[in-house]
């Protein structure tokens, strides 16, 4: 297969606003898949509802645009049925940290071999700019002229508390790094969470490329930062981290079995579930009822 991102393109033009970070996220995903030589017909993407989901159809792959907050369990079901596929769950910060918060917790804990792309634009954009847990506290939002009253969610410490086997943070303004992180995430055997700080020129005007350049740092630039040591990583973000946006590969733990690999019922079975759908003679099982 050629290294050609065109094969992931479709004729459908996305409806995002000019300058939306989603263009870069999609381009990065196409590059990552292409560089890894993963065919569109071996890729399964579940899309959430929100601006991220409005990109469904504009990337050539098998896919499902389902319900708000549910792209993660949908992707898990698809992955468990056929592990030959590269399965990606695409979701926004609203879907991930509000409507379907339970799923990210249990997906990380279970370590399913999928990649979760969180498009974090810090608001519910498609419904025209309501506050999410990641919107800055006190910022005036739709229906909240006096500002968002609740505290923000500390995503890094929250996700790290779950001991993710792969947790990276990218930025929609830095395609090069994003492609690298996505490739690493897709290759990682286990649940890969890639949170992408996404520019939203319509509802999050404060977050500009210039602001981001000034207030962000890649963990790779920090001396003695060891992303393979989860204890140290947790300790860093609990105690030493500065009030800036950290990006890069925050945590990567290898050798932790995936959910599927822990199932005694699937031990030694070479086929995938989809290949096994046929009549089964229950005669042997019936003996227990005699």
């Amino acid at each position, binding site marked *: 297969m050629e290294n050609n991102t065109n094969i992931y393109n479709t004729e459908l033009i996305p409806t995002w606003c000019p300058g939306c970070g989603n263009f870069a996220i999609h381009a990065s995903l196409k590059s990552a898949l292409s560089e890894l030589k993963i065919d569109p017909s071996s890729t399964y993407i579940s899309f959430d509802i929100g601006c991220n989901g409005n990109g469904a159809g504009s990337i050539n792959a098998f896919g*499902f645009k389902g319900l708000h907050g549910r792209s993660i369990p949908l992707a898990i*079901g698809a992955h468990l049925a056929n592990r030959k596929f590269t399965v990606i769950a695409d979701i926004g910060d609203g879907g991930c940290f509000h409507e379907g918060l339970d799923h990210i917790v249990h997906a990380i804990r279970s370590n399913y071999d999928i990649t979760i792309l969180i498009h974090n634009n810090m608001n519910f954009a498609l419904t025209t700019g309501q506050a999410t847990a990641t919107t800055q506290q006190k910022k005036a939002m739709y229906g909240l002229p006096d500002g968002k009253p609740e505290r923000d969610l500390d995503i890094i410490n929250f996700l790290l508390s779950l001991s993710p086997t792969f947790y990276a943070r990218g930025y929609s303004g830095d395609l090069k790094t994003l492609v690298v992180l996505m490739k690493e995430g897709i290759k990682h055997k286990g649940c890969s969470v890639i949170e992408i700080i996404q520019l939203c020129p319509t509802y999050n005007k404060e977050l500009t490329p210039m602001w981001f350049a000034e207030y962000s740092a890649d963990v790779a630039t920090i001396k003695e930062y060891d992303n393979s040591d989860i204890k140290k990583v947790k300790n860093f973000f609990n105690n030493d981290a500065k009030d800036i946006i950290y990006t890069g590969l925050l945590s990567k733990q290898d050798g932790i079995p995936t959910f599927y690999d822990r199932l005694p019922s699937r031990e030694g079975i070479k086929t995938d579930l*989809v290949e096994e*759908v*046929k009549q089964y003679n*229950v005669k042997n099982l019936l003996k227990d009822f005699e």
Partner: protein
Amino acid sequence: MSLQRISLKFVGPSGQGINTVGKIFSKTLKSSGFHIFATREYPSLIKGGVASYQIDFAYSPINSSSKLVDLVCSLDKDSLLNNIDSTKENSIVILNSENTEEDHFSEYSKKKNLTLLTLNAQKIASENGGIEIMGNTVLLGLLARILSLKSNVVYEQLLENFKSKKIDTEAEKKCLEAGYNSPLFRPEYTNLLKVEKGLNILNKSPKFLTTGNDALALGAIGCGVRAFYGYPMTPATSIFKYLGETSKETGILVKQAENEITAVQMTMGSMAMGARSFTATSGGGFDLMVETISCSGISENPLVIVLAQRAGAGTGLPTWSGAGDLTSAVKAGHGEFPRAVLAVSDINSCYTLIQKAFNIAEKYQIPVVLLTEKVIAESLFSTDSLPKNIALERGLTQGTSRYGITDNGVSNRWLPESNKKTFLMNSDEHMESGWSTENAEEATRMVSKRMNKIMALKKEIPEPQYFGNINAKTIVIGWGSTKNTMIDLLKYNKEIGYLHYEYMFPLKTDFLKNLLRKNDKEVVLVENNFEGQLGKLITEETGINFSKKLLKYDGRTLTVDDITEFLNN
């Protein structure tokens, strides 16, 4: 009908082994040549409260519980007091009590002419080298003697039941014999129950004892289900248990999800990829799955959900039976989309209809809800065989547009596979390609296409089943477990007929309308809910109204006596 069947009830505090003695005795009866129907009633707590295990047995197949029992075996006084009203006249009551002299039941005993046998089973167990719980074994011994069963058959079943546990087999045997040879036994007790000696016709035993949920799980395994996603909720949970316990043999992937929404979404994902999978829950969990049902409808992704009904709204009567979720199954979900709703009644239909559910779901690419009830899910039925597997119909074809418009509304469906044409499934309104659209004409075309599938499906599904006298003037109409009671009733009442629905939606009504063409029939609706939910669906479809309705919604199932009494009034 008096003693063509005998009804025996174990009662006692929950968690004291009621379920175990019930199971052992059910198997003993089966091995002794009887057909049985055994049902559990228990409170929603782990220890304490009053639980019961009722076994009805006869020489011919039996499908429901009697309202009143011939024989009670109570583990303590309070449980007996709680159940004393469920005894027939002349019945025998065995009571385990430390104080064998005390008599709190003389009033009842006299009124109903009960024979009360009080024994201190724990003491007898300890005298025979057993521990406290073996008091239950003593009681089993005495019961076996009264019913002229062989004590070694009980012993075999006891060993079988505890084969994975370390038990003192010698003590168990001694306790069993002590009960069997109890001085309380009188030959006239056997006569009182009119059980003749020599009933043990071993070669006529039914072959299997299984619960509805086990039969349903077996049916699922039989039709190629490869994954089950669940979240605990009575009375669906034992499907999960059985599939989990057999997963090493079957290779089925069993996942306890973080909640019902996850379970149904994972099911959707696996079905979208092409692996047969399902989830099972009860009313509350089903409500959480409803948005996904609607999503399955518009995205045309096959989905199978087992809805195991219990009684009541909210948390209701969590461990009791009912059939009040039909309306919910038929109507649940926003927007308009096609679906199918099927309802089981016994182990045969549990086995077959889960397989049908998958065929319909895949062939028509729709959500299918399979209804069961606590009394079917958890009761033990006896049978000589389970039905044969039905052929898999997956409706898989090759094509180029996943949502192509067709006459019957069913589009090409192929599974994601390397080098196959990719497609997007979509819960947004979409074009034939799967891409989202908000175009009015396209929306009209797509909604119509999907709704057309209901007509196509309706052509395929069968009319309701008719049992009993075809010329009957009185016709009972029902669904679910009502059938089991009616089948038992029809053995004694040759004057009436019973029309049974197992395909609840779409609803077939031609047979019913033909039956009622001549205006000389009386129709009686019998349902285990308040509203007469099947009746409402029939009225909606045909305009036929039901003036005579037997509706029971107290968490208890309908008995032959309930229906007979109603019909006689």
